[in-house]
C-alpha cells in the first residue's frame, strides 16, 4: 500500500526521502539506540554501562538507519515486500535472554549478522539495478536513487561484519592480569629478599624459580654480569584480533633490582615495557608471600 496522496504534494515527504522514512517510533528507536551506544556517561566507581551488549544493541538500529537513508523502505513498499515489525520485539527479548552469557550473545550475533548482511546485499543489488537506464530496471525502482541504495547497502554489509567481529573478538578473552601482577610482584620480591639474605654489598640475583607469564603473556628475565643486577619483562603475546585490539589495553611490565615496577598499557602483542616507563609500584618484602 502506498502513502496517502496528500504526501505527494510535499517534496520533502516523497517516498524514499529521509524525512519520509525516518519518522515516528522507528526514528525514536534508532536515535535512542545510537545514543545508548555512543554516549559515555561520566559515571564513576562501578557505574552501570554497556559492554558486551554494544554490538547486539547497535546492529538492527544501524541496519534500519542505513535502509532508511538509502531509500530502501520506499523500495520495499513499492515492491510490496512485507516488513516484519515484530522482529524488533523479538530481537530485544533475545538480547535480554542472551545478554547473560557471552557465548549466547555470540550465537545471537551469528543470526543477526547474516540477516543484516542479506539486507545490505539486497540494497546494493537494488542500487546497481536502479543505476541502469529506466527501461532496464523494475517498476518498483522507478523513483529510487541508485547511488544512495548502493552506498547504503555496502555500508550495511560493512557494519554487520564489524559488529559481529566486535562480539567475537572478545568472547572468552580474559587475560587475568591481576593474577599476573601478583606473580610479578612475588618474583621480584623473592629476588630482593633472597639477595638481601646474602652479605651486604655482595648480593647476587638468580634466575627465578617461579614463572611469571601464563598463556596470554610472555616473559624475559635477564641477569646482569655476575648476577649483580637483573631485568624482568612481561608483555602480552595475545590480544583481540585487528582492529579490535585498539579498543582494549593490557599492561606490559618492567622490573629490576631497584624493586620498582614500571608499566605501560599496550594495544599490540609483543610490545615490551621500556626501562624508563612510569613507576607505578615499589615492591615490598611482604609481596613475596602474595597469595596466588
Amino acid at each position, binding site marked *: 500500500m502506498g502513502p496517502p496522496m496528500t504526501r505527494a504534494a510535499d517534496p520533502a515527504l516523497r517516498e524514499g526521502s529521509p524525512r519520509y522514512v525516518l519518522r515516528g517510533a522507528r526514528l525514536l528507536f534508532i536515535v535512542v539506540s545510537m545514543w545508548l551506544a555512543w554516549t559515555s556517561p561520566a559515571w564513576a566507581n562501578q*557505574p552501570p*554501562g*554497556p559492554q558486551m551488549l554494544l554490538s547486539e544493541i547497535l546492529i538492527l538500529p544501524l541496519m534500519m538507519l542505513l535502509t532508511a537513508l538509502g531509500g530502501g523502505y520506499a523500495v520495499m513498499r513499492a515492491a510490496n515486500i512485507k516488513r516484519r515489525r*515484530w522482529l524488533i520485539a523479538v530481537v530485544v527479548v533475545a538480547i535480554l535472554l542472551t545478554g547473560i552469557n557471552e557465548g549466547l550473545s555470540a550465537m545471537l550475533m551469528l543470526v543477526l549478522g547474516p540477516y543484516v548482511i542479506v539486507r545490505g546485499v539486497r540494497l546494493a543489488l537494488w542500487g546497481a539495478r536502479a543505476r541502469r537506464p529506466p527501461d532496464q530496471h523494475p517498476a518498483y525502482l522507478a523513483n529510487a536513487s541508485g547511488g544512495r541504495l548502493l552506498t547504503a547497502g555496502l555500508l550495511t554489509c560493512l557494519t554487520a561484519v564489524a559488529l559481529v567481529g566486535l562480539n567475537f573478538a*572478545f568472547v572468552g578473552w580474559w587475560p587475568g592480569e591481576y593474577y599476573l*601482577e601478583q606473580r610479578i610482584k612475588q618474583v621480584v620480591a623473592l629476588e630482593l629478599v633472597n639477595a638481601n639474605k646474602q652479605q651486604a654489598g655482595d648480593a647476587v640475583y638468580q634466575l627465578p624459580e617461579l614463572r611469571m607469564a601464563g598463556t596470554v603473556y610472555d616473559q624475559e628475565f635477564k641477569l646482569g654480569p655476575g648476577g649483580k643486577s637483573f631485568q624482568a619483562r612481561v608483555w602480552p603475546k595475545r590480544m583481540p584480533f585487528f582492529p579490535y585490539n585498539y579498543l*582494549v589495553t593490557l599492561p606490559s611490565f618492567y622490573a629490576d633490582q631497584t624493586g620498582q615496577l614500571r608499566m605501560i598499557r599496550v594495544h599490540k602483542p609483543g610490545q615490551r615495557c621500556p626501562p624508563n616507563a612510569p613507576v*607505578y609500584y615499589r615492591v*615490598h618484602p611482604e609481596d613475596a608471600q602474595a597469595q596466588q
Partner: protein
Amino acid sequence: MRAAPRVHPTTLVAAAILTPLILRLAGIVPAVRFTRERIAVTVHADYIEVDGLYVYTNPLPFPLPQGLRVPFPTDALHPAPASVEVTEVEPLSQKDSEPIAVRWVWGEPYFSIRVPAFGAKHVRVRFTQYSPQMSATYLLTTTQPWGKPLDQGEYVLRPRGVRIVTSNYPLDGQGCLCFTRRYFMPDRDWRFTWVLQ
C-alpha cells in the same frame, strides 16, 4: 497542507515497550540497585590496598545483566593500578566464590554481573594504588549516578606502619578508624593522609 506522518500502531506499541527496556539493558538507566558497600583501605607507607564489597539488588522478577566499570582517582602522583581483581562473594560467609572477567576498555576496567531475580549479587573489587606522597582518595560521589542513596556504607582505614593524619570524613566509628552512614548519598570523595609511624 502537510498530512501527519503515518505510524503503524504496532510500531508505537513496540517502541513504548522496548525503549525503556533498551535503556535498562544498556545500563544508562541502572537495571539493578546499588544498595550497600563496605570499603576497607589498608594504608601502607607508599601505597594503599582497596578492598571494596559492593551489593547490587534486582527488584524485578527476572535476572538482569549489568555492566560496571571501575575508574580511579589518578594524577601524576597517584598512577592508576595495573590491574583489578573482581570476584563474586558468598553473601553469608563473605568469602570469594568465583572470579569475574575484567577487560580494560579505553583505559578503564569493565566487567559484567548477572543479578538473579528478586535477588542480590555481592561483588568484591580489589586493587593496589601507589601513593608515594602519603595521601589518597577513594571515590564516593560516584554513588550519585545511581539515583538513590546507599542503604548503608561502611568505610574503614587499616594503617600498616603508618599513622592516619587527616580524613575529610570524621573517623567516628567505635574501636576502629572508620565511619558508617545510612541512607548515604555522598557529596564529596573520601580523602585521607598519613605519615610514617
